[in-house]
């Protein structure tokens, strides 16, 4: 094969992760359904995880993968608590959006 095919370097992974993070941030800014807001937060968490794993490979340090493990555990706990709060809000007001939750302030 005379065609020189570039192998993806760490920079490609990091740029892809930054693009995923930016998409998640835009989603948090434009969406109003609280469930979809949580999904966009998951997108940003996955972008950070991808960065950690790519840099763990590049730097030869297993600590990056350990950090991703902890991030996954904390993300699971965060989703559980957040969905509990969303369930208790949406049960009283089924059509609530993220703008309506501002009425919680006293």
């Amino acid at each position, binding site marked *: 094969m005379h065609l020189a095919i570039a192998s993806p370097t760490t920079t490609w992974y990091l740029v892809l992760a930054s693009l995923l993070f930016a998409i998640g941030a835009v989603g948090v800014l434009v969406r109003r359904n609280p469930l979809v807001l949580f999904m966009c937060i998951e997108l940003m968490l996955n972008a950070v995880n991808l960065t950690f794993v790519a840099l*763990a490979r590049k730097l030869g340090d297993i600590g990056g993968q350990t950090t991703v493990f902890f991030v996954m555990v904390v993300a699971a706990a965060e989703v559980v608590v957040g969905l509990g709060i969303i369930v208790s809000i949406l049960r009283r007001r089924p059509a609530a959006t993220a703008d309506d939750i501002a009425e919680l302030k006293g």
Partner: protein
Amino acid sequence: MQLFVFVCAAAMILVGAIGVIVRSHPVHAALSLILTLFGVAVLFVAQDAHFLAAVQVVVYAGAIVVLFLFVIMLLGVDKAEALRVDPVKVQRPLAAIVGLGLFGLIAGAIVRSRDSLVVRGHGIDIASGDGGHDSNIRQLANDLFSNHVFAFELTSVLLVIAVVGTVLLARRPRSSSASDTSAGSK
């Protein structure tokens, strides 16, 4: 081959991510999220993080997205959000500017600092090495249970607190007459 895997996984990730933020139906957004999570799992395998790829599929695509879908079905909020109307006039253009600026800044920082990445660890064992099939899991476990064992134990406390707190938050009050005895359900 690596380039092919990377391009396919990147396409999965970006299509899924854009699907999450443009689909007006929450169920479609959750299914697009699964696509993104699988793409990230493929890239984890490509970066020699086999255990994390398995955890990504099991925990994220399995548990968390099923939890999202379960809440969507339970609450009956599976109706399309009116995305045509823009509640705040300049919200979407400003969000696009913020997103592009964020991506530009991060990508610029990455490209500028790519030469300063030097190997400083002991290397990551890969499955085809001399450590056998489970060398990645073994290396991860050695690091987790020796250097981070206290944080690992704390995560168990965190998970118990999250589960108990969620049960208290989402519990339905027993009845209106007995609502004064159900503490914590406010």
